[in-house]
């Protein structure tokens, strides 16, 4: 399932040889469970704790939901949602890419942003033309805690 690839990180640095998994699903709420399941499996593979896995998939799942936007929940999916997961040493880097149409960026100083970033280690939000890219990094802390 994983393949060796060159993964471009949020700060523009590329890491050779990191394993990455690309999940592309229709931009519809029903498919977010696919992303959530994959993250749990990948977290288990990297030795994450249950609490770490719960927080990561919650953060990514809510980000996916936000990028899917406020379209009619029962209508056909418009567009796609791409989720790239880079598996580093004790680090999962998740990049969620979706359409920027109708998506409102949450207030960076707001309470919701604080809650989401408290569940992961870092989060960046980049509007790139018609697309929004959100990078989330969750490190495995077992050795420290």
């Amino acid at each position, binding site marked *: 399932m994983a393949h060796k690839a060159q993964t471009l990180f949020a700060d523009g640095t590329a890491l050779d040889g990191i394993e990455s998994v690309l999940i592309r699903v229709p931009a519809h709420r029903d498919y977010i469970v696919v992303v959530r399941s994959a993250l749990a499996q990948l977290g288990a593979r990297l030795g994450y704790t249950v*609490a770490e896995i719960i927080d990561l998939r919650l*953060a990514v799942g809510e980000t996916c939901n936000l990028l899917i936007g406020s379209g009619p929940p029962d209508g056909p999916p418009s567009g796609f949602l791409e989720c790239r997961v880079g598996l580093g040493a004790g680090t999962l880097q998740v990049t969620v890419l979706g359409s920027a149409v109708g998506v409102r960026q949450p207030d960076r100083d707001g309470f919701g942003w604080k809650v*989401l970033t408290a569940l992961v280690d870092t989060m960046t939000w980049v509007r790139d033309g018609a697309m929004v890219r959100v990078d989330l990094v969750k490190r495995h802390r077992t050795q420290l805690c």
Partner: protein
Amino acid sequence: MPGPPEETNLRPDRGRRRAAALAGLRRLAGLAPDDPERAALREHVIGEYMSYARYLAGRFQHRGETSEDLDQVAYLGLVKAVDNYDPAYRTSFLTYATPMIVGEIKRHFRDTTWDVHVPRRLQELSAALRPAEELLNQKLGRDPTLTELAAHLGATPEEVIDALEAAAVYSAASLDVPVAQPDGEGVTLGELLGADDPGFTMVVDRESLKPLLAALSEREKRILLMRFFRGMSQAEIGAELGVSQMQISRLLTQIITRLRAGVDPEAG
């Protein structure tokens, strides 16, 4: 990274007391089991953290137990945490104690309450998760990985992940029970949070939020994110989770009140 949560964002007098309790914990860990000083020091340290145990018990009070019963269960978890904490774990005491206290409370409920939709095999596995996590935590001196947990339980990682989802179903059932509003009567969310309450938004930062969020269920954290990250209305959240707007309103009020009490227990 800033210091552990018990050393930040406290008033000076509270900060001193917590620092003294922490010092007590460290000394306790170094004392011989039969040291005459031990009993008194242990009692003092436990007393210092009892308000935190009550705060954690508060999140379960809407499940039909008297608060005294739940407080007792939470104290039991606190005593275990104080007795087993080792500063060599290199984790803050609250980070160590929170899952232990919450685990004690969850175990208290687990035998009697279950959502009927969860298959028995998953119920059993889900019920075994927290005790196994605690056991391995004590053995390893850190939280076990999901893979270690699965191996310990004789299950596959896939089954453990399914059991986690089952646990989420369990907590969903509690949404149908009207929740208590300790001091929330007639208080709107806007009054508890945001522009009307600069105290809350000013004090809370990412690092102090972490241990408080760790005490919330996945579903409770999700509701917070739906409301404040995705900016959904209470009615929209209710529609997505299949419960009424009123229930979401009560639940949000309760979560925020608890978070606020956790930021500064004396401001409750």
